[in-house]
């Protein structure tokens, strides 16, 4: 994950840059997650704490996303089932 292949749109201001590799991020959460995953050895305590918090927030959002995915799967399944009942 090198920071060389990044561009920042003109009317956009990044929330921060990674102190260790210079990768810019649009939100602080993503920056914190990046630091925790890519440079775990170099973090201080507050950064580690921030990482764990961002991660648990993300887990909550992931749960919602999973529910939506499950809903979509159910819809897809029953949709196809009815289609087969009608047309095949």
């Amino acid at each position: 994950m090198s920071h060389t292949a990044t561009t920042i749109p003109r009317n956009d201001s990044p929330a921060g840059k990674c102190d260790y590799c210079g990768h810019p991020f649009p939100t602080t959460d993503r920056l914190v997650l990046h630091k925790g995953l890519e440079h775990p050895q170099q973090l201080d305590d507050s950064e580690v704490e921030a990482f764990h918090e961002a991660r648990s927030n993300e887990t909550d959002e992931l749960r919602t996303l999973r529910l939506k995915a499950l809903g979509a799967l159910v819809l897809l399944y029953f949709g196809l089932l009815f289609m087969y009942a009608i047309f095949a």
Partner: protein
Amino acid sequence: MPSSPDSETNTGASEGRHTDLCLRSRLRNRVVSNTKLRLFVQFVTWVAILTLFTETVVAGNGMTLSKQPRDTLAIPRWLYLATGGATIGASALLASFVTDRAFIRYLHNWSLSGPTVDNWRTPFVWVGRGLGVVVLGLAVYLGVTGPQLPTASFTILVTFVVVRAGLPMLTYLGGNLWPVLNPWRGIVSLLPTGFRTYPEGLARWPAVGGLLLLVWVEVIFPVSTIPSVLSIAILGYSVVTIAGAVLVGPNAWFKNADPLSVLFRFFGAVAPVKRRDGKLAVKLPGSDLTDSDLITDTSDVAFVIALIWELTYSGFITTQTGAATIETLVNLSNIGVGAVQIRAILIYTLLFVSGYVVFFGAYWYAGVVSRRRTGTYITAKRIAFRFAPSLLAIAAGYHLAHYTGLAVSLSPALGMAIVSPLSPPANPLTLSPPGWFEGLSIAYVLVGHLLAIWAAHATAYELFSSRLVAIRSQYPFIVVMIGYTVISLWILSLPGATPPYLP
């Protein structure tokens, strides 16, 4: 339903004196109905597209049904295509449940190390390339002097059953043996080389051009039916390859400019068997498709898309619908200038190039959309580079679907041609694959796409630190993959035909 926003406004106008609260709720109703309207319009558009699509399919069949009343599908075609697309979509949804980075990394790093091969490499290479040179020489010689019947010709059988069908299958199902077998490399190793340095800026563009040219020659010229024509084509390819490799040195030439070597190198990325640090290693199939050093230039992406497109294209023109499309276009282009054959070649070329541009554009646009939707600062180009290796699994699936039948039906003829290349039997045996082979092709296409979905999922997790972003970044690519699947499954469901106007 389309009148609902109007009726909303009418009731709104009659109740204009109501309180602020009422106004706000009305406004909200208005917004809801606007969304509803938009959804409705989208729904109607989709239904229209689907109806048009299925109707053209039916029309295509109707035109040609009189010749060959063969339609093995027991369900409506659109339902079959929708099921195929839904399989890909559902597996993408399922993949999004796997959010454990450690698990993904474990699967992709899993490997079983085998015996050391580096001590054996030199004799292997000598034997392999020696064999390659002998086969190449025999193929060129026998194409001119041998029998001119395609199923009895050593040249045609070796070129199409071995190099076009068998070796790529061996490469993506087993491992890449081409560097060991490459006859041109064997010849070049005996010559003085490296008079110029290869211009780095060209990257793999010569290979992209070469691959497209090879497929074009395969379609336009009777290389698969007349052995002497194929001999000339092989000679031409050999001259270009040897000249190029002598000029820039074999390493640079076969890495960048030789279409066959690049093709086998890319298909080898899907393979389970690899050579790592002088040892053979077995990995899970497709687990190297997350490598960031596989695709490093736009030309690499162009090559991968060309692999997918050439298989789609040669599949399409050998169906009745494809033949009917070509005939219609050739008739439409009749403006009184040029012979039918010339116009047909132009139409074939135009269809080949424009379809390729559409396939490439769709993929590239997916990269742009992925960047915009996730708001990431990683460039669209880099996103496109990282997701492109997953398309190799799709290309492998297409290849297997399109060439298994050919390889099986011509394998006895190939066996006889290899046993007695100088005096092959006058009437060689060809097998006709059983009906369930078609079902198998559908399975190959789907399995290729499923592997690609998984590879894309794993790539997204390597590329993005946020798991939510990683999931969202895949959506546009999944849409493109569903599109590729539906097109490929559609082609597989069409009855076969001989491409018209070609010699």
